[in-house]
């Protein structure tokens, strides 16, 4: 029951947090910024509209939003939000879930190529390239976690018998993971410095240009999917930094839902302080995260005998 309530809460609250990023950025720019609930307004607006489809497109174009949104929802069902055991969990679920995100990407890219637009093709090529590299970093993180806990599921990582924590034997290595995971978060969710969601020139976009032709409820599904994905990554980082504390009981829940906003604040800080990278620097940025974690995984040979 608790699990169902938390997951419902997460599904409802996820669109709230990106508003925090906008607020932080506005604060740094000395502006008032949009209201905190801006993303809910956007979703409502989109849901009330109809759609325009390009004559070039086929059913694949309509599959894109569906698959990516379904994938992002599925990963949250397996995640121990706020230390409450998830609805589903099994040994090996992390591999399945990251591949489910992969099929979401496959169809987002295919939908972009379906429009016959050169700009969308350009965005698709970049998304596919950077996504592949980011996936390698994620699996390096899974390798490290397996070395530390012997587990292959989100619930074992955070609420299992041998859950990961910063003050464990190899806790220092987690510092590398946090940095690297944050870099992956920025890449996978098209944030600055990899991609700029607020840019105005299609040539410089990655994710935004791929969804140019989507409109109405389809676009709402894409947005919703991206909120869930960002929420998942933020929760992942937050639980590594501040793991579930058994003594607090249900109090973990408010800590989690408030604490997670710190990750969004961090994203906002990065976006305020940095410009977008040149495209050819992005692969190096993502590879840095891979190297960091692989290094940590190799170091476990000393820590864990």
């Amino acid at each position, binding site marked *: 029951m608790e699990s169902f309530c938390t997951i419902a809460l997460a599904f409802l609250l996820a669109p709230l947090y990106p508003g925090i990023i906008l607020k932080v950025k506005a604060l740094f720019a000395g502006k008032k910024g949009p209201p905190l609930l801006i993303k809910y307004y956007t979703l409502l607006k989109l849901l009330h509209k109809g759609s325009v489809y*390009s004559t070039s497109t086929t059913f*694949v174009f309509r599959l894109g939003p569906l698959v990516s949104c379904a994938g992002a929802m599925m990963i949250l069902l397996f995640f121990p939000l706020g230390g409450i055991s998830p609805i589903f969990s099994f040994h090996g*679920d992390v591999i*399945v879930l990251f591949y489910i995100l992969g099929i979401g990407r*496959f169809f987002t890219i295919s939908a972009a190529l379906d429009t016959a637009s050169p700009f969308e093709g350009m965005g698709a090529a970049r998304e*596919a390239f950077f996504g592949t590299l980011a996936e390698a970093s994620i699996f390096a993180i899974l390798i490290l976690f*397996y070395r530390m806990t012997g587990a292959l599921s989100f619930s074992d990582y955070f609420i299992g018998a041998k859950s990961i924590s910063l003050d464990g034997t190899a806790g220092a290595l987690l510092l590398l993971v946090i940095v690297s995971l944050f870099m992956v978060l920025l890449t996978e969710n098209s944030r600055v410095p990899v991609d700029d969601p607020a840019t105005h020139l299609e040539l410089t976009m990655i994710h935004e240009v791929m969804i140019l032709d989507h409109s109405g409820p389809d676009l709402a*599904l894409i947005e919703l999917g991206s909120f869930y994905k960002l929420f998942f990554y933020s929760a992942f980082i937050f639980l590594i930094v501040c793991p579930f504390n058994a003594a607090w009981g249900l109090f973990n829940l408010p800590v989690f839902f408030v604490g997670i906003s710190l990750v969004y604040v961090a994203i906002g800080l990065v976006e305020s302080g940095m410009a977008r990278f040149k495209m050819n620097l992005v692969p190096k940025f993502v590879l840095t995260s*891979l190297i960091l974690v692989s290094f940590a995984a190799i170091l476990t040979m000393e820590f864990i005998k």
Partner: protein
Amino acid sequence: MNIFLLSLAIIIVGGTLPLVTCRNMAVAKGLYLGVTLLGCITGLTALFSTSANLLGATWSWSWLHSFSLAFACDALSFFFLMPIFLICPLAVIYSFAYFDKEENSLRTAVSFFCTNVLIVAMALVTVAANILSFALVWEIMSLSSYILVMYNYEKADTRKAGYLYFLFAQAGAMLIFAAFGVAFSHTGSLQFSEFAAIPAEAKLFVFFLAFLGFASKAGVFPLHVWLPHAHPAAPSHISAIMSGVMIKMGIYGILRVYFLLASSDLLIGQVVLVFGMVSGVLGVLYALGKHNLKKLLAYHSVENIGIILIGAGLGMIGVAKGDVAMAGFGFAGSLLHVFNHSVFKSLLFFGAGAVIKKTGTSHVDELGGLMKRMPITGRTFLIGSVSISGLPPFSGFVSEFLVYFSAFNGLKHNHATLLLIILAIISLTVIGGLASFCFTKVVGVVFLGEPRTDRAAQAGEVSRLLTLPMAILAALCLAIGVFPQSFIHLAFAGFTGLLQIGSVDAAMIDTVGTNLALGSRLFLLIFFTVLLFRKLLYRNKVIAKGPTWGCGFTRGTARMQYTGTSYARSVVSFFRPFAIVRESKVQLVKIFPGKTEFHSRVDDIAEVGMQHGLALPLLTLLGKFRWIQHGKVQLYIGYIILAISVILLVSFI
């Protein structure tokens, strides 16, 4: 066993009939299709009916009075027989409509005959139980497939491809026979079952010789050079059989020799694993760089063979370390991937064949928009693409998951093993990512968007007989993904009794199967819920049609679309120097510019290396001895006499 032999006999008869009746093509094709299908169905009955009792059956004939040809069927043979009897009949149905030119009747009849000889030879390779019978059927397999590749022999490209294939097949066979020779010198017996008695150092030597030989058949990097030439040259259903089934005989050989030798040397597993990683990553990389549809699929075979070898290598390391879970899941993943690959790769080759048949071109950048024009081919190709990219809820993911599972299990070991396994997991991820990169390219450029040429614009759907095999295979891809348990059990059954260190806990296998089933079904459930939700949202909404948003540009043309070349360019050049990218361009200069041009091609480092490092020096060296061949018969007889006398002298002194 008798039913099994009967099925092979029927298939041979089915192959001979068109040779006799080739004057009337319709009759010949009809007879061929009917009898061959009957043979393959009999074969499947032999596999799955309990009364036939194929497992454990042995039989032998004496040959030339002094030798015996022995055959035996065990779990591994059984597993490899399945794709043969499953994929080949579908390819035969496909070929019925694919060969539709009357004037080629004799050639087509010969091709039908050789196809059936190939099917029978492959079936016999899996059950051969001594050196002689193996050598015999292996050579029949190589030669019949060589003739099949040469179907369009009037084209220079085909002849070159055939020659290359012949060269690699024979060089590989030579290495395999050398390995058997070494084994024979130690055991003095032709029986495979004696191999385990060889001393440990010789085992390594035998294994690596045989590995290289089988690797050239399987298309392991850097011995894969013939694959990307032979597949585009051969008719599409032949490519499907060769890539889907025949190259797996190489994998069968590697596994068979490994299990026969029963060696638990760590080095074997490590070498196989490294070959697997290199084949996997470079195979998919070159696939990204290639723009001929069938060449690209051929490189994907190299990639998938890589994944299969990663699984096998992990299994072998598991055996060496005494880690049952790692060994079991590694081999199971490897075997299941053999099966899955034969399903989705033949599906993709069938799809490619349909596209080439309708448009007359196999260059991806000349196609586009085919999803609307060829709906069934397009949809099945999409399913095949998702499967080969290893994405759930389709088949490719199940086997990749087993390989991952084995690798993660192996992470508890330390030192060199740990490093190798970390590399293996990361290469599996990169392979998966690049494969979906490559197949979004194929699907996006060939089937989606707008047609880039008139030929693509005028294409239509192919006949039912061509789409039927594709539909069956696509359904199978989904079935394996949604009901993985029985297939995982089948893969584990493929090496029962062969693993020396015990067998994996059946409950564990069940758990993995049900978990994977849960994952893919849950995803489908969520997907359909969201789909329903979307349907509700679109009730009473205005849906309009319009052109694609051109970002302010109003005169967009189909030529402006991203091409396969531009889509893959950034990632291919990221992998320099492994991918040799050559680009030449003529740009706009001055105020009266000429015609602009851009050419780009990606060369295979193994092919270039083999050409410059091996073939050319060898040719120069051998060219120096050309004077021996002068065309004077008297002197040739002199050579023979000289040779005989030298041999006599050597053997008597």
